[in-house]
């Protein structure tokens, strides 16, 4: 037995062996073994996929859209995406040469990294961050360089902090705003400063804007739309969050033709194309899904107001996040570490949230709570959490 596991282990590439498993995994196993848990740990919308999108998906199957499509994605979907990115983000992409439809935004950043990073290249990214970015960068033998963001700046990455981490090997900057797990969003002045920084150091910029439609306050500004940025930006987005289509696995990447060509090669050999059925669904979402987004966004905003005010009322400092569907309150006032807080909350009150450290070391002192959960569950969760915090302080 020892020999067998030894020999299997030997086949694994050293740089993959070194990749951490998602910090959420261990937590998931505990939660899965229990019955009465209210989970605020889910990173996906609770709203069902809008009915007209599901109906169109069924029609697509019935009418035979069950074949390979163009590697890049169907022309109709790419044309609709070009119109959408122009309308929603004020950046124009040529549907024939600058858009690749992918299997979720996850495949989009995977092929973006593989097409552009060489061994030893350093990529600056801000933490706390979604768990997949740094490990996927490492699969290309690139070096992810974490830059901490802080509550004092509402978790908006600061150019002064980025500057400290720049070396001659720095090749790219990765951005994810609105942010998972903090709910932070950038202001125009931030985007302007980041633009100047990227140009000053001749960096490629990846920007994952999958939560952009879930922006509740303030102007929505994409770095891809800033002067001089389109040619050095890979714009990543998907349908999962805006239209509650997580299981469809549909995303897309937009970039200048030379970069699109390079990503296309990997996508074509590795994936062929995104699901034809999902592409038909995505087209329906873009064609008639504006009201769906507006309705869900309104509900999220009200729930966010509720959860932020409840957390602050129980003495857990929490800024009002302008985007996504997460709050990232500080739990330092309880004297517990993030992990202890999350574990004890789960064991004592059956409420699941994710310790901030799952998203990087600087997430210590925080927990991530999702408000993509119905009001009845949110209310119960806040009651139980309030009782837990009161007991800790007694």
């Amino acid at each position, binding site marked *: 037995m020892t020999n067998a596991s030894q020999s299997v282990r030997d086949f694994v590439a050293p740089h993959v062996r070194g990749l951490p498993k998602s910090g959420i995994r261990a937590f998931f196993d505990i939660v899965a073994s229990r019955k009465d848990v209210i989970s605020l740990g889910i990173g996906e919308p609770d709203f069902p996929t809008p009915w007209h999108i599901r109906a169109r998906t069924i029609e697509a199957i019935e009418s035979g859209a069950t074949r390979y499509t163009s590697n890049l994605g169907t022309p109709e979907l790419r044309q609709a995406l070009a119109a959408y990115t122009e309308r929603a983000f004020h950046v124009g992409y040529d549907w024939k040469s600058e858009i690749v439809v992918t299997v979720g935004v996850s495949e989009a950043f995977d092929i973006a990294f593989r097409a552009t990073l060489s061994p030893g290249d350093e990529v600056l990214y801000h933490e706390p961050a979604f768990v*997949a970015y740094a490990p996927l960068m490492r699969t290309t033998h690139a070096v992810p360089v974490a830059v901490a963001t802080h509550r004092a700046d509402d978790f908006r990455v600061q150019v002064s902090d980025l500057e400290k981490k720049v070396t001659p090997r720095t090749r790219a900057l990765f951005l994810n705003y609105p942010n*998972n797990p903090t709910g932070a969003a950038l202001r125009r002045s931030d985007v302007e400063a980041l633009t100047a920084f990227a140009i000053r150091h001749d960096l490629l910029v990846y920007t994952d804007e999958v939560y952009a439609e879930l922006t509740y306050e303030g102007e929505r500004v994409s770095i891809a739309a800033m002067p001089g940025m389109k040619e050095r930006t890979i714009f990543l987005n998907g349908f999962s969050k805006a239209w509650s289509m997580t299981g469809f696995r549909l995303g897309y990447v937009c970039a200048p033709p030379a970069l699109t060509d390079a990503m296309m090669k990997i996508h074509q050999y590795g994936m062929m194309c995104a699901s034809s059925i999902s592409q038909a669904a995505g087209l329906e979402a873009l064609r008639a899904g504006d009201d769906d987004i507006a309705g869900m966004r309104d509900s999220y905003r009200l729930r966010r107001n509720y959860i932020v005010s409840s957390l602050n009322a129980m003495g857990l400092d929490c800024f009002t996040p302008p985007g996504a569907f997460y709050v990232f309150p500080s739990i330092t006032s309880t004297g517990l570490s993030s992990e202890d807080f999350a574990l004890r909350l789960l064991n004592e009150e059956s409420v699941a949230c994710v310790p901030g450290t799952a998203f990087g070391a600087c997430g210590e002192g925080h927990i991530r709570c999702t408000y993509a959960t119905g009001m009845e569950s949110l209310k119960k969760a806040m009651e139980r959490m309030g009782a837990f915090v009161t007991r800790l302080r007694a």
Partner: protein
Amino acid sequence: MEALLNLLKQNARESDDTLAKMLNTTADDVHARIAALELSGVIRAYQAVVNTDIIADHNDVCAVIELRIRPEREGGFDRIAQRIGGFPQVVSMFLMSGGYDLLLFVTGRNLQEVAGFVSGILAPIDGVLSTATHFMLKTYKDHGVLMTGEENDQRLTICP
């Protein structure tokens, strides 16, 4: 005001405190705004959405009745509508465009009772030209609420 009304239409039993947190205001303010909505007649009543199909000893029947009526010289449809709406058997009533004028939702303890109401009370009213009665067999959705086959939440309990 629109946001508050929408929340109440989803759940009229929501507490003032929760509504206040969602709308970034105080419970007192919510209380006052609801009182004003009630006073001005915007909010007429609060009711539960009930699935009567699954109540064991519930035998009431509901019928949809299409009514063609002759409008009066003074008062148009309103006076006759008022006369019909006064009967407690009539649960809802709307003036419609198209092939008939009034659409009624009528309940009774059994089929005979509703039939008797139509033939004995509604049809003889002066100005009622014709009636067409359809009995409801099963409720699938009422007031935006699905009565059967509610989707389970199939999401994983923790995901990044």
